[in-house]
Structure formats: C-alpha cells, structure tokens
C-alpha cells in the first residue's frame, strides 16, 4: 500500500461514479421510453446529485451526520476493492467475503444515521431494509460459497479469470445455471428494484430510511446509491459473467446486465417485506442449496 494505490483508488472511484451515474441516466431514459415517456436527459442524474449536494439541509445531531459520512465512506472503500474490469486499485484485496462484509459498513452507517434522525418512519424503513437483506443475501452467499469451493479461490478477479479461460461456456452463469438465476434474483433484491423494493420505494412509508434527508445528506446518499449499485452489479459480472479482460468488455457486460435488471424491475409488481423473505427462502435459497450441493458433492460444472 502506498500513495499510488490511493491515487489509483481515487481514480477508480471517479470512473465508477461517472460510469454508473451515466448508466443510471441512460436507464431512466430507456425506462421512460418503455413507458412511452420522453424521459429526462441522460445526465439528469448528475444534475440531481450535485444539486442536492449544494443545497442547504437540516441535521438531527452528530450521529445523523456521522452515519452518512460513515455510510458513504464505507461504500466508497468497498468500491475501491472492486476490480474495474482488469483494473485493481489494491492488488489482493478483492476477496469476496471482504467485499460482502465491508459493504455492510455502509449499510450500517446509513441505518444508524436514519435512526439517529429520531423519525420512526426512518427506523421502520431500516428494519425493512435489513429484513430484505437477510432475505436476498443468504441465497447469494450460498451460491458464492459453491463457487469458492469449486475453484478454490475467493478472489473476484481470480474467479473471473478462471471463467474466461473456458470462453463463453466457461461463464459461471452457464456452468451453474441455477446459481446464475439465484444471483440475478438476489441482485434484484440488493439493488432494491422491484419486486423487492418495498423498503425504499417512494410509495411506501415516507420513502423508508431516506425520509429525513435533504441537501448534502441526500446528495451523499445519492452518491452512495450509485456506488452500491456499482459494487453489486460488478460482483455479478465478475462472479458469473467472466468479468472483463478489458475495461470495455467489463463495461458492456455491466451495462447489459444493469439494463436488463431495470427492465425486469419495471414490469413487476412489489412484494410486501414478509412476502419477499418467504419468496427468497422458498425459491432462490432452495435453488442455491441444490446448486451448491451439485457442486460440492457431484462436482457438476467444475470442469
């Protein structure tokens, strides 16, 4: 670790931000078209973020501020761990479990900040968000566990490289189709897209955890959202779609998956929170267990 790594990391952060925010803007456009609207400009998302950041805001005490800082800091740190295609800010730090757990720092920070506002709606939102997390994360981790066992590596880039050796058919989504499906469903949950968006959807209780935020707090939360989307989608790209030998390859895969999920999201209704849990434990978890079982005990798809 030296200053170069940090600079590299900063660069990656910027790149990720620009890439993901642009993609969000584009997607808003795509979705609008789907709904026969014109939709905002593709850089509208940048405008939103910067506008929010520059506005005045209210605060409810130091936890409220500290939580936001911690949340964004944690998520940014996580984003630094994610290889951007072949690019890595810090070598050897893309361990999947590290990422999964560091990700939680951001979650915790945001939850803390929300509850710190003293608004019970925010707390309810947090409780839903956490419940949702308990639902989607376990099938996902289960599949990842299978992958790690299969390839004896828990490094994102390592796993991606192994897939690329087998060409298109080496992609995990094809080797382990069940796992792939589970991962996609879980990703939908992670991103808070329909049908699993009850904790954050604007139509639900006062926008959930975000209810008290405005100005720079909200702007930072927007940033946080972009970064977490980046992290989560990247995870899937690396784990199941062979990652990217080049930055471009990575960006293309990323964009396709993200758009696909967005489209899916827009045609689905919304689960209640307990329905989401039940669903995740009935279908994806079962599939994940079957997939892992197949990998571990039968060696299926492990080459």
């Amino acid at each position, binding site marked *: 670790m030296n200053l170069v790594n*940090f600079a590299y*990391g900063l660069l990656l952060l910027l790149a990720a931000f620009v890439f993901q925010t642009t993609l969000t803007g584009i997607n808003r456009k795509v979705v609008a078209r789907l709904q026969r609207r014109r939709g905002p400009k593709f850089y509208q998302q940048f405008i939103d973020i910067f506008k929010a*950041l*520059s506005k005045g*805001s209210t605060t*409810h*005490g130091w*936890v409220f*501020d500290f939580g*936001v*800082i*911690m949340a*964004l*800091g*944690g998520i940014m740190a996580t984003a*630094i*761990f994610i290889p951007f295609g072949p690019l890595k800010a*810090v070598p*050897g730090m893309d*361990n*999947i*479990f*590290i990422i999964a*757990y*560091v990700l*939680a*720092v951001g*979650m*915790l920070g945001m939850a*803390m900040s929300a*509850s*710190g506002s*003293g*608004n*019970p*709606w925010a*707390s*309810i939102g*947090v*409780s839903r968000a956490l*419940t949702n*997390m*308990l639902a989607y*994360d*376990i099938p996902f*981790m289960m599949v990842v566990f299978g992958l*790690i066992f299969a390839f*004896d590596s*828990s490094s994102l880039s390592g796993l991606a490289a192994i897939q690329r050796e087998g060409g298109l058919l080496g992609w995990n989504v094809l080797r382990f189709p069940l796992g792939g499906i589970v991962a996609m469903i879980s990703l939908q949950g992670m991103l808070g897209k329909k049908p699993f968006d009850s904790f954050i959807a604007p139509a639900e209780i*006062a926008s959930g955890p975000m209810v*008290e935020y405005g100005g*720079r707090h909200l*702007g*930072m939360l927007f*940033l946080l959202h972009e970064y977490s989307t980046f992290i989560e989608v990247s995870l899937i790209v690396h784990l199941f779609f062979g990652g990217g030998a080049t930055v471009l390859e990575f960006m293309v895969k990323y964009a396709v998956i993200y758009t696909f999920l967005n489209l899916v999201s827009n045609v689905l209704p919304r689960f209640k929170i*307990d329905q989401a*849990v039940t669903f995740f434990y009935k279908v994806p978890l079962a599939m994940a*267990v079957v997939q892992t*079982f197949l990998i*571990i005990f039968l060696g299926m798809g492990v080459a």
Partner: protein
Amino acid sequence: MTFDIVVILMFLGAFSAYLISKASLKAGAYATTVFSLGALAVLLMGRSEIGSEFSVLFMNFEVTVIGWYFSGVMVLVYAMTSFFNSFWMDKMMYPGSYNFLYLFSLAGTLGLFFASDLITLFIFWEVVVWSSTFIIPMGKSRRAAVVYYTISSIGSMATLYGIMLVYRISGTLVIQEAFVPLKEDPLTATVVFVIFVMAGLTKIGIFPFHIWLPLAHGSAPHTFSPVLSGGLVKMGAFIAYMSVAILPAYEAFEGSLKIMGIPLQLYFLMILGAISIVLGTLMAIKQEDAKKLIAYSSVANGGYILIGILMMDQLSFAGSMMHLFNHAIASAAAFLAIAVVAYRTGTTKISELGGMIHRMPLTYLTYLIAIISLAGIPPMGGFVSKWLIIQGLADRGLMFMALAAFFGSIGSFLYVFRPLAAVFLGQLKPEHEHLKSEPLMMKIPMVILMVLILYFGVLPKWLLGIIGEIQVAAGIEPVMMSGNTILAVNGVLNTLNVFMIFGFGFLISLIIFLLMQKSRRVGLMDTYTSAEFIYTPELYHYAGAFYAPFERLYQNHPSVEKFLGAIAWKFHELGTVVNALFFSHKPAVTVFWTSVILVMITLGGAGI
C-alpha cells in the same frame, strides 16, 4: 512459579475481597478490580513460563498455551467488568458475597484452564458452576439460576462419566495420557467423546442446551452478565477443544463414516452448532430485552466457535480461537454498555429506552464498536475471525454450516442494530432528559475494550501468533501470516489495508461532507410526520416489535424451552406418582408393596 501463585492468590483474593467488603463495600469492589488486573498482569508477564507444572493440595496443574490463552481472555473480561462492580454495591443483596464469588469463579476458571489432570479439571469446572450459580439469582430471576445449574450439571455429570470411563480404560487421569488408548477403540472413543463434549455444549449454550443462556445472561446482575457471556461461556469452548484436540477425535474416528472429510460424530456436532447459529439469530431478533438479545447472540456466536473448533484445521480453528477472544471482549463491551444504561435508567427493556446517545455518547460508541465486531463487520476484530471461519468452511465445502454462518452473519445485522436504534438512537424520553453521563470508572473499561476490539481488527498479528502456537501444540498447521496479510489457501486478507482503504473512503466522504453547505441543527421532534402534530417523544419512537413482519414468519416456532420444560414437568409428575404410590399413612400400602417385592424377587430367583 508464577502461575501457582496466581491460582492461589486468586482464591485468597476472593476471601480478602469479602473481608474488605465487610469494612467498605466500595473498597471490596475495587479489590476485585485490583486482583483481576493483577492476575492479568501476571499472566501477560508469565508468557515465557508456559509449560510449567505445579500442584496445590491434591490438584495438579500444567500451563499450556491454550490454557494460557483462555485464561488471558477470561481474566481480561473479568478485569474489565470488575470496574463496574462498585456501582452496584449498594443495590446488591449480598455485596460482600458477590465480590467473593466474583473472584472465586475467576480463580475457578484459572484452575480449570491450567488443570493437568481430569479430576482437577472437573473440580474447577464445578467450582465455577456453583460459584456462578449463586451470583445469578441476585439479579432478576431465581429460575435462571436453577436452569443454569441444571443444564450445567447435566453436562458436567456427563463429563464426569466420561472421565471415569477414560480412567477405567487408561488407568491414568493425566490429560495428555488418559485418552491415548482410545485411539484404538473407535466405539468407546465415540462414547467418551459424546459424553465428554456434552459439558462443553452445555456451557457454550449449543442447541438444545442453549435455554439457560438467555435466562441467565439476561437476568443476572448487570455486572455479571458480561462475565457470563464474555467469559464463562468460553469454558465450554475449552472442553470442546479438549475433546477434539486431546482425544484426538480425528485420529480416533479415522475409520468412521465421513462427510466432506469430517467424521460423522463431529459432523453431527457441527450440525448442532449450525442449528445454534440459526436459532440464536432468530431468537435474538425477536427479543424485547437488550440483555436477552445479546445473550441469544452469544448462542449464535457459540455455534461459530464450536464449528471452528471441531474443524481442527488451519483456518476455521484459528478463526474460532480468535472469535472466542473477539466475542468475549465484544460481548462484554456490549453488556457493559447496556449495564451503563441500566445503571442510569434502571431498565434494559428496549421499548422503555431511546435516545441514550444524547446522554451517554461514549457508551453509544462502545456499543457501536462492540456490535460491529459481533456482526463481523470490518475493521473490527470480529470480522477477521468470521472471515477465517468462513474461508475454512469454503475450503472444506461444508455447505450447511456455511449456510448457517451466512444466516448468522446477516441476521446479526438485524439484531445488533435493534438496540442501537431503539436504545441509543431515536427519541429521548422526557424522563431521561436529565440523566447524567457515565461515571469515569465506567468509561475506563469501555475505552480499553473499544481500543482492543479495533486493534485486533486491524493488527491481529500478535493474537494470531499465539493462536498459531496453539495450533502447533494441537498438531495442526498454524495459520499463516505474512506481514499483516493472513494467507488462506483460498484467499488473502490484509487487515491493515482494509482499514486504510476504509479510512481513505471515510476521508473522502468527510471531505465531501465538509465542502458542502453547513446544515442547520434541528430538534429530534422536528421531523417529517406525515402532517401529523406529535408532541410526545415516547410515542414517536419505533422500538417494540422492531422486525414485526419478519418475526411473524416464525412466531409459531417449536420451542426447545417448552419441550425441556415438559420433560421437567414429567419428572415432577413422576415424583408425585412416586409419592402417591408408595407413601401413605396406612401401613397396608407398604405391606402390599413389600409382599409384591417379596413375590417378584423370589419368583425371579426360582426361575434362575
């Protein structure tokens, strides 16, 4: 020579603490601190004397690395908690006895960890059990003490049977030698292993022996809960370690059916550990009392520790050993934080509290760091240990344990967040408006624990070094480290880097925050209320049934408590039956039974 002095001194210290308490309660409480800190100092200084042997009365001791490590953890927890003792002296029924039993149980644990023969081990085991049994009822529940004692003694009696069996077979009680002949006899080894490990299971609180944990931890005196959860539970881990490492289970069960390379016997125990994780997590999520919640989290964490110990490998075992330490200090810190709250407010019920952060920020910080570590989030110590355990599980492909571990990890976010949100955050109740901040003596241990949690999360090298020694002593490959990087076969972890990147991200975030326009400070009640006008903070606080939608999913779960309660009731009924059948004021009843027995035995005798 250092260690025998420690053991003897602690017993004498217990008595002197009692006597000092007779003169002055506060002084007695400080005596517990002085003695336990002294023991800690001696332990740390005596590291070079590991391997020394000594005898006291008829008991024999040998200081092994693992014993030293465990006793260090234990003494640390005791020492830190003892700072709190003085604040409860005037509220306790038997303050002198409390101080006495406090140090007495500590002395017992030291003796236990240093024991070199099985009887000594058992003696101290029981000493700890009974001395702690009498502290628990000074808190909120008498039943807790009884349940605690019963479950503990089920375990210890099973172990006693095991000890006797081993002695019968091998003719020696020396721990290192007694199990040797068992390697040739897998069947007996299985029996010994199962009954021996039972004590460990009861103490760690593994399903189905977990029921005492929430009861006892949740209702023990506030100053004893940290010790119970952080310290005494680890005795079980020690027994589990002994049954796996010293037996040694993997060699003895070489010939038995294996699942993923794990002998069936151990696999079965791992399943129990996995169940404990899931169950502890689910139950913790629905608790309304902060102490009970942390107690259930101890059940879950006990599951991790057990699984790790049973693996006996390079990664999970190391993770488990480290988790033992991390959980000890984190759970102690969490309990201490709750104790501060209880000291100031007099309650530990989540729904009766709120907004404590505005009155005791340091306590909040302690709790925050503790739960981050408990949930295994970087950069705290708990992350490193959980990472090691999960990497080990992935290496072996133990998918069901891993499933439980994931569930426990994610679930822990849910339950640790709940007190955070409802006790420390949210609306401050008007009656708590004028609470004072935590006293200085309470701040000291909390700060120390916070620093330790963070330190071992960032720089675990020293700790893992000791664990490596333990692993070498147990005859397995030690965990590898290069610089600050932990090298696992299927992944690497550089904790310092994680911390630095985290700090970097935090810095950027902070810069962004500071660069932007300043915010206006508003009151807690000044929030978005969906156009309602609300003036009562009590009602404007989300605390009860925090995860209601999720809790609803398993509200009708089958309960081990009920099942065991039914068994206990059956015993009770049986007693009544015995009473009614054989005891009467009429001689005829007994004459009848006498005739029956006479007939039965003579008839049986005639048949032979």
